[in-house]
């Protein structure tokens, strides 16, 4: 097109063009303005520009139990495709470790334009989200200055690293390296528990003396009946659970699902769904025990040989009469028989169904009642955990191939060497869920609050004053009662300095004073391990250079360590790559079958092969004389004297009981907030990771499940935007009307990013706007599924 025609058609005036084309035009002068140069003449090199595609095996290190093999196809330093495990062998003892939809969408994670790119410092109020760019040098200097200042003023116990699982890698994550750095420079306030498993990890040892109550999953092919109790491995990937459950079905196992929702696991793998109301699991368990005992289906031999507390004849000394399991179940002391008729009013599952479940579980030899971690995340979660171990014990399913001891099911028969760390000289840990309490009134908190490492009657030496939030969203988004948490963090007199490192600007990152851009797992070395049940380890290889100015936590903590004068002790002279290599070489010393560094770089994954299943408590059952359970009595403690001695018989009974919760179906509060609200782990996120991935939105929209009965009562139709609220906050979220959930219960998938509008109403459906900060009685754990709400159509 002629230039003159062009000029006529756009807004450039002819005058301007003539002005331009006149040789005497004064040039556009910009007075020596220069900008940074990004391009330079090519260096003379032997190789041409990379046209080859390299395939590098690696894995993600988000908080995922699957830890699959991910192959990055790299061209010219850029990842152009992701593929997964396609090994020849795909057998029972050596399955392929395939990626799910999250693993496959990793390119949209690493190349998301909204990645944090430069260190930033806050301008404006904390939590407002206004930042300006600074250099790494300024960032480290500021962090150093503030750390010194606060440590000098309040002591090292004021320093706390918030529970975070965005980088759940094996060797040098920010979590563990913060501990090392602070351990080398006076100590810090540590934490115990996790947000995943607090109640179960604390409660299971009261039965078995340990939380390692699981078996390898290949044992499930020997089960006649598998009950997945609040366990949803189809969405929350637990190693290779789905593969093994399918194999079990093929081998003839029946699978039942006990869950307030007809989960994807239920639909795909279960023969029947047994729906119950949340927090009423123990009523159901009690009734099952009732049926099993009254119909003489319990394994008396097993009980008498291995357990205490099941009947009056087998109780610890000095316990008054009527406190045994049998007495409780048969109502000998409280006059209430825990029959199916009693239970159905509470849990909602009809009495005949309770009987069916009980009889089948008792008569299937062996049977596996697998306790998921969902139900233990309740205000009475400890009871649910203990209840499942009791059922396993009265049916003799402990220590059997194809059975399952229940409880936390902790398991791991493979391991790699761990990177050396430093002990915390202060030796104090708080339950991680109570971190906001430790900010507002830490000095008033004692051992009664679950704090470990304090002397009798002693409170914490100081409130928390300095927060490091490294690769996590539990500072705000994943913690209870977001509105309350916000208020606490916004107060700069409470926490005086907050350092955050992340890949994205999450709701937690908004509260940073210094915000650091983290690189992704593609850009650093690590070792990836699955949660317990998988027999494999993956070298998470560096596939490309860190984008922009992002650094790994290890890298910038090294810079901080240098400022604090402990660089040598911190790094021990090693980079992340060196540590990955060190772990592999150390592991090889103990396990010569383990591949070498070079081999791991090529194959990426090492799969251990075991010819037969490893059964939890097999030794203790086969040879109890020489292998007592690690409990005070050496037996399976259905009745726990340790719990009895705590003297909180209502809240923390010595045998597992149905303990009604404050925000449950039996409480007064239902008059105001009649619906129970639970969350679940959604297949399109890994906790809160991937919420900003649009591909994942196509795979799983953020919506709340609501039963048809409840929806109709409220004039709510499928797809309507609803207002969900209680005293703690308000959330707007679209609804999926479905009968795959129990009436009286609504469910919001957890992990959505808190997105408040101008009125402070969350518009994305972030469940923690509605959850509480009150901890569970024994473990002081997060009861994030125990909530009451009301739902209306949003205006």
């Amino acid at each position, binding site marked *: 097109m002629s230039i003159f025609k062009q000029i006529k058609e756009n807004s450039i005036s002819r005058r301007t063009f003539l002005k331009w084309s006149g040789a005497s035009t004064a*040039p556009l002068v*910009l007075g020596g303005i220069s900008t940074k140069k*990004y*391009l330079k003449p090519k260096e003379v090199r032997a190789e041409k*520009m990379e046209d080859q595609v390299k395939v590098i095996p690696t894995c993600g290190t988000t908080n995922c139990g699957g830890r699959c093999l991910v192959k990055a196809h790299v061209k010219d*330093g850029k990842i152009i495709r992701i593929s997964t495990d396609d090994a020849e062998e795909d057998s029972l003892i050596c399955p392929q470790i395939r990626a799910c939809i999250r693993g496959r969408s990793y390119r949209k994670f690493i190349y998301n334009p909204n990645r944090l*790119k430069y260190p930033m410092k806050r301008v404006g109020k904390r939590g407002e989200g206004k930042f300006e760019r600074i250099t790494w040098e300024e960032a480290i200097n500021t962090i150093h200055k503030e750390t010194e200042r606060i440590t000098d003023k309040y002591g090292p116990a004021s320093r706390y690293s918030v529970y975070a699982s965005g980088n759940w890698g094996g060797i040098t994550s920010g979590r563990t390296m913060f501990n090392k750095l602070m351990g080398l420079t006076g100590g810090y306030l540590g934490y115990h528990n996790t947000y995943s498993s607090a109640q179960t990890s604390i409660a299971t040892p009261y039965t078995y003396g340990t939380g390692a109550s699981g078996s390898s999953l290949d044992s499930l092919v020997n089960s006649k009946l598998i009950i997945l109790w609040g366990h949803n491995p189809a969405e929350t990937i637990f190693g290779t659970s789905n593969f093994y459950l399918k194999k079990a079905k093929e081998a003839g196992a029946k699978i039942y699902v006990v869950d307030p929702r007809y989960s994807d696991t239920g639909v795909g793998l279960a023969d029947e769904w047994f729906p119950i109301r949340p927090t009423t699991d123990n009523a159901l368990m009690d009734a099952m025990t009732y049926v099993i005992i009254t119909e003489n289906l319990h394994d008396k031999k097993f009980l008498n040989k291995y357990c205490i507390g099941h009947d009056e004849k087998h109780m610890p000394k000095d316990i008054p009469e009527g406190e045994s399991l049998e007495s409780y179940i048969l109502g000998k002391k409280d006059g209430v028989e825990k029959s199916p008729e009693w239970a159905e009013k509470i849990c909602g599952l009809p009495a005949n169904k309770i009987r069916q479940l009980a009889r089948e579980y008792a008569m299937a030899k062996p049977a596996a009642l697998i306790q998921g971690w969902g139900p233990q995340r309740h205000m009475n979660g400890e009871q649910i955990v203990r209840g499942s171990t009791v059922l396993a014990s009265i049916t003799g399913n402990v220590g059997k191939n194809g059975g399952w001891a229940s409880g936390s099911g902790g398991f791991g028969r493979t391991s790699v060497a761990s990177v050396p760390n430093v002990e915390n000289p202060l030796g104090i840990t708080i339950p991680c869920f109570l971190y906001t309490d430790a900010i507002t009134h830490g000095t008033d908190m004692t051992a009664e609050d679950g704090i470990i490492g304090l002397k009798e009657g002693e409170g914490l030496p100081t409130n928390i004053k300095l927060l490091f939030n490294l690769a996590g969203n539990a500072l705000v988004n994943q913690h209870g009662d977001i509105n309350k948490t916000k208020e606490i963090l916004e107060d700069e007199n409470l926490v005086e300095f907050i350092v955050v490192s992340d890949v994205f600007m999450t709701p937690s990152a908004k509260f940073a004073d210094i915000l650091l851009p983290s690189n992704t797992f593609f850009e650093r070395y690590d070792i990836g391990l699955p949660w317990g049940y998988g027999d494999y380890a993956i070298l998470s290889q560096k596939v490309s250079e860190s984008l922009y100015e992002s650094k790994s936590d290890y890298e910038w903590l090294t810079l901080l360590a240098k400022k604090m004068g402990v660089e040598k002790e911190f790094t021990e002279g090693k980079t992340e790559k060196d540590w990955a290599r060190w772990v592999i070489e150390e592991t090889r010393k103990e396990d010569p079958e383990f591949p070498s560094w070079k081999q791991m770089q090529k194959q990426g994954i090492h799969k251990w092969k075991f010819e037969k299943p490893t059964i939890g408590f097999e030794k203790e059952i086969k040879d109890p004389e020489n292998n007592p359970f690690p409990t005070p009595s050496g037996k399976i403690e259905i009745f726990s004297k340790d719990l009895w001695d705590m003297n909180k018989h209502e809240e923390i009974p010595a045998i597992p009981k149905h303990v009604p919760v404050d925000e449950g179906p039996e409480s007064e509060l239902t008059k105001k907030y009649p619906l129970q609200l639970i969350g679940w782990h959604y297949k399109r996120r890994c906790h809160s990771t991937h919420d900003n991935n649009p591909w994942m939105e196509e795979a799983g929209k953020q919506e709340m499940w609501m039963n048809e009965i409840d929806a109709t009562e409220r004039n709510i139709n499928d797809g309507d935007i609803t207002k969900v609220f209680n005293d703690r906050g308000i959330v707007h979220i679209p609804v999926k009307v479905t009968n795959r959930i129990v009436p009286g219960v609504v469910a919001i998938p957890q992990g959505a990013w808190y997105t408040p509008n101008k009125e402070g109403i969350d518009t994305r459906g972030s469940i923690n706007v509605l959850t509480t900060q009150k901890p569970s009685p024994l473990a002081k754990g997060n009861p994030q599924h125990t909530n009451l709400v009301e739902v209306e159509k949003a205006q």
Partner: protein
Amino acid sequence: MRSNVANPKVDYFPLLELRKNMYILLQKLLSQPLSKNDYIQIKNNGNLDVIKGFGEGGEIIYNFFKVDNGTNSSVHEQEYYKLFIGPGTLLAPPWESIYRGKDRILYDYPSLEVAKIYDSFGLELVERNIEAEDHLVIELEFMIHLIESSSKENEIGSRFIDGQDLMLSQHLSKWIPDFTKDVLDNTESTLYRGFALLLNDFISFDTAYIKEFSL
């Protein structure tokens, strides 16, 4: 060589200089938030008369620097962050891959394509991974490089002209309009609205203009 311009040889070289400076100006406005010093420099040493009539954007930019002393620089700085850097969701992510790729992610096929073009002209990134090759600042830098190189040549119709034609017609013109729309939809800052309009008009002008000289 084809041209309908009166006398291309005479008009060509001063125009090269003008075009180059235009790219420099656009680059300057995009590469970083303007410091107070920048305002002073541009006001005192810049001769922005030339862009005054260059569409709505030119008018806005001209008037902006005439009037503004940089007193509101922090406001515009925050707008700059919101649009182009973050933290948070970038409102106008300045990469070709975002607008032409399917997934709105970085390092999509456009970045591989322009990297190849830079390579064919003997250029590579100073530092890899510190920025993607298809960031607007780099595409503008490349245009400047080509213009400078073509002004060293005596003949019109060199491969540097071809390079400019390629960049403009196969790359810049294909995404700048959508990028401009995102900027205009998401900011009230006169500085960046002016920038976007000027960028859009100039790229569409230059895309047609360069055709006059390419073989």
